[in-house]
């Protein structure tokens, strides 16, 4: 058929070339951010070296790095503890966030019943809540999981609910005309429609997750970056406090990168729709 031949020529260009081009473009896009960070670090280093500042007040970046390196064993053990709390808390948050989004999507009554308490939960000052949660649930993993979930579930729930609502009524009618049940329509239309929204929510909430875990540890724990920071602070080891801060920031960046990667792998069609490369 001639139509097809013409249309075939409109198909997107080769995959390898497009990928190389996009990698180069992303490297170029990252340059300004790298420059700003380097500039800030250099300024800080100069100020600490030349300004004759007390190391317990502001140690230089190089001192932070070397102190962190010397304490790498302890730092690493505590990082693992924090990472464990973060991941377990986030997994719990995903489960709860998803379950809530389904309930809210199910009926108007549930939506009106659930939304106000959920919004109120987000107004609670964590600084006051964290010690209470530790008093209630002890020094183990439980309070950390709960606090990480508390600061992360809301963005996920809201994103999913909004995503379900973006489903095309025509697509739902089509599925119904084929004889699909309501559950099936949810699974085959509403849920996939919500996926790009979900990942947007995920990107926001993952940046709170590590901080949430550290907060919980700060309020009382036997291990973790939060308790490490507190001990270092009490010993006036500002360099170690900052080393732990650096580690927690790196952890957040790494988790953020994982969500981006997951998004690319799990919802490839969105990049196609944006005129990206041809799928495998």
């Amino acid at each position, binding site marked *: 058929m001639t139509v*097809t031949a013409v249309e075939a020529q*409109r198909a997107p260009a080769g995959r390898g070339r497009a990928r190389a081009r996009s990698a180069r473009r992303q490297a170029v896009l990252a340059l300004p951010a790298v420059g700003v960070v380097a500039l800030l670090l250099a300024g800080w280093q100069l100020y600490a070296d030349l300004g004759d500042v007390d190391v317990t007040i502001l140690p230089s970046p190089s001192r932070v790095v070397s102190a962190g390196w010397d304490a790498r064993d302890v730092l690493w053990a505590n990082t693992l503890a924090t990472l464990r709390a973060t991941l377990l808390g986030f997994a719990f948050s995903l489960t709860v966030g998803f379950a809530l989004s389904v309930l809210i999507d199910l009926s108007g009554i549930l939506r009106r019943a659930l939304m106000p308490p959920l919004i109120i939960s987000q107004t609670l000052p964590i600084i006051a809540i964290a010690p209470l949660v530790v008093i209630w649930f002890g020094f183990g993993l439980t309070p950390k999981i709960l606090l990480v979930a508390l600061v992360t579930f809301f963005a996920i729930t809201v994103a999913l609910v909004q995503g379900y609502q973006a489903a*095309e009524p025509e697509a739902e009618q089509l599925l119904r*005309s084929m004889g699909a049940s309501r559950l*099936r329509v949810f699974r085959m239309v509403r849920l996939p429609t919500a996926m790009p929204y979900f990942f947007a929510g995920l990107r926001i909430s993952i940046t709170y997750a590590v901080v949430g875990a550290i907060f919980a540890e700060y309020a009382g724990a036997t291990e973790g970056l939060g308790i490490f920071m507190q001990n270092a602070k009490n010993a006036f080891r500002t360099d170690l406090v900052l080393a732990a801060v650096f580690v927690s920031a790196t952890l957040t960046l790494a988790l953020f990168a994982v969500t981006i990667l997951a998004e690319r792998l799990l*919802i490839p069609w969105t990049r196609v*729709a944006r005129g990206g490369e041809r799928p495998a």
Partner: protein
Amino acid sequence: MSVPRLEIRGLSKSFGDLEVLRDLRLRADRGEFVSILGPSGSGKSTTFSILTGAVAADGGEVLVDGRPLEQADHAPFAFMPQKDVLLPWRRIEANLTLGLEVQGVSKAEARRRVRPLVARFGLAGFERHYPAQLSGGMRQRAALLRTVVQEREVLLLDEPFGALDALTRTEMQRWLEAMWERDRWTVLLITHDVREAVFLSDRIYVLSPRPATVIREVEVPLPRPRTLETLADPRAARIEAELLESLLGDRAPAA
């Protein structure tokens, strides 16, 4: 005459105070291509919504092969909505098998049934593409394939070519006519394109503005297969004029 494949008797529907359908009567025989022509907003899509069960009628009856729709053991209609609604996250192949999947047919079997149709519908080589990578005409053909492969008693096509440019639209009409010649599906086509109705149909119903009711029923005795010459036939021109006249009715020409 035998029992019609589809018969709609005295259908009525209001949305609140808005009366949309009033005593609508239609019929389609087995293997007949029937078009519904009407001004936009008259209630054409609503009629399909009632047939597919998305909307409940206030009154009237729908009979399929002489039996009330409620007694049917499966959905007798394969529906193609006004928008193509190909699911963007499914590759074309998975979009084509959607209806069969919902019917409970296994993935492998569904693919086996879709495969012979792919080339006929001009989609060969595009099975692994996402819908966003297809042109408008291809998307419509994919949506149509998804509809016919369900092998239901009646195809309900709601302005399938409404969103296409004029050239692609003509091309698609010719293509659909050729497809129909071969398979002789029972088709109910909604359109507001008079030419399209004449070119494709055996019979055409003209609906009034809201509340919709049939104001005219026109047979199209033009020979098949139909080609571009068919439209040049003086009989075709006469039917077109007749249809336009009943559509525009006694509305005064714009000043």
